[in-house]
């Protein structure tokens, strides 16, 4: 239950973050690649200096290309979020296609169309792989979390509302999953600080136990 007021809307500022992150990725990756290439193409005795020279010549260019791509991708992604008011994998796929097409527009509409198609296919594969990994990683840990939940329940007993509980969720599970929600919030905060994908997976697994903790209130404003 991280306080939403402290966390701002990510979209306008995320573009700058993505530009920096993409530049870093491209600069580091380009440095490694071109260092090896320079070592390979230099004569004996001058391999280290050759590698360093090649890195100095090419790494900033590769970083710049990645920054341009990342910035455009993030811009299109934010535009999709604003237009659809929904965040799901389709935003990334459309943003990838738009980025590919936009960067190739100078070469003509035919080339732009082909690049957009390739960008869309590439991001579709990436999103598909991500969903498959998420599905595989999410299933096994479910039974392993039960002792943690029971321990948490022993530590902090929360009274749950017994009115019309879900079929799978007994009252004990509701209280324990409430505690799980708190841990999910904590993991969410840590994830905001570090931004690792593994943290996302952990908090996602814990927050999946938030579902039984939905007590149906007796008051209605309809």
């Amino acid at each position, binding site marked *: *239950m*991280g*306080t*939403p*007021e402290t*966390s701002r*809307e*990510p979209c306008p500022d*995320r573009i700058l*973050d993505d530009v920096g992150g993409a530049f870093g990725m491209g600069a580091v990756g380009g440095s490694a690649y071109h260092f090896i290439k320079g070592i390979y193409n230099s004569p004996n005795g001058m391999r280290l200096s050759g590698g360093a020279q090649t890195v100095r010549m090419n790494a900033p260019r590769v970083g710049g290309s990645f920054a341009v791509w990342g910035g455009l991708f993030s811009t299109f*992604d934010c535009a999709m*979020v604003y237009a659809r*008011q*929904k*965040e*799901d*994998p389709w*935003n*990334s*796929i459309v943003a990838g296609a738009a980025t590919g097409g936009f960067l190739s527009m100078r070469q003509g509409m035919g080339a732009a169309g082909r690049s957009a198609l390739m960008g869309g296919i590439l991001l*579709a*594969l990436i*999103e*598909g*792989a*991500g*969903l*498959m990994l*998420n599905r595989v990683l999410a299933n096994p840990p479910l039974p392993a979390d039960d002792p943690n939940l029971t321990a948490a329940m022993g530590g902090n007993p929360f009274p749950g509302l017994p009115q019309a509980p*879900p*079929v*799978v969720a007994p009252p004990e599970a509701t209280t324990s999953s409430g505690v799980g929600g708190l841990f999910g919030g904590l993991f*969410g905060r840590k*994830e*905001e600080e570090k*931004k690792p*994908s593994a943290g*996302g997976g952990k*908090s*996602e697994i814990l*927050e*999946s136990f*938030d*579902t039984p903790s*939905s007590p*149906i*209130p007796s*008051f*209605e*404003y*309809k």
Partner: protein
Amino acid sequence: MASRVTRLLLHRRLTTAAEASARRAPQAPCAGAAVSKDVVKAEASSLKNSRWHITRSNTSGPLTTRYECRKVFPCSVRPSASYSTQASDQKGKQEGKDLSNVEHPFDDITYNIPEKPVTFTEGASYSLVILAGLGIAGLAGYAVFKELIFEPKEYKIFGKALARIQSDSQVTSRIGHPITGYGQETRNRAARQRIPNKIWTDEDGVEHVEVNFLIRGPHGAGKVYSEMFKDTDRTWKFTYLVVDIVSPPHAKTQLMLESYLPA
């Protein structure tokens, strides 16, 4: 060896007989011509038959054929000098027989080429490689289509619940009108796009999907708990849809927009 020697001797006798007949021809024009024709035909047929025997049986076929060609030429030249029309007819016959002789060795070579076993083996191996490639492509296509083209259940439920919330005045009056839905409160794009969900099937065989997500508007934010089940007519229906508005503080409350009560 003896058979070869005897055959060579026969050829020599035949050639000597041909020479004798050639000499006799100019002496007696009418009767001699008729006799010489018959003798020449018999000699030609015997010579060709002997050639065939030699080529089939002995490895020194080309040598003997060359020897015979040299001897046969003067026989053919002398009749042509005396009788041009008859000579041309004989030449045509000889040429036809020569063509038939030349074509036969090619047929022998063609019969010895082994094709079927090699073609079958290579075809089988190539077919296996092709099938493996098609299998890999099929797996990739299946993954893409299953996960993206045919929308996953949690995203379908997420879309329906979000549409229901966006069109509800109780929520819009509290947190503002353009309401955005996302999975988690973080700046990570993948985590925001991933909706926590739980899918299970109850005792009656009905499929249930629970989703949790966050909503945000211009004036506040909230948390949504929703569950849908697939009804008997294959449509998704809400079991419950609860919106927990956590911000702004003065509007902190819980709303139940959907609740299923079986008749």
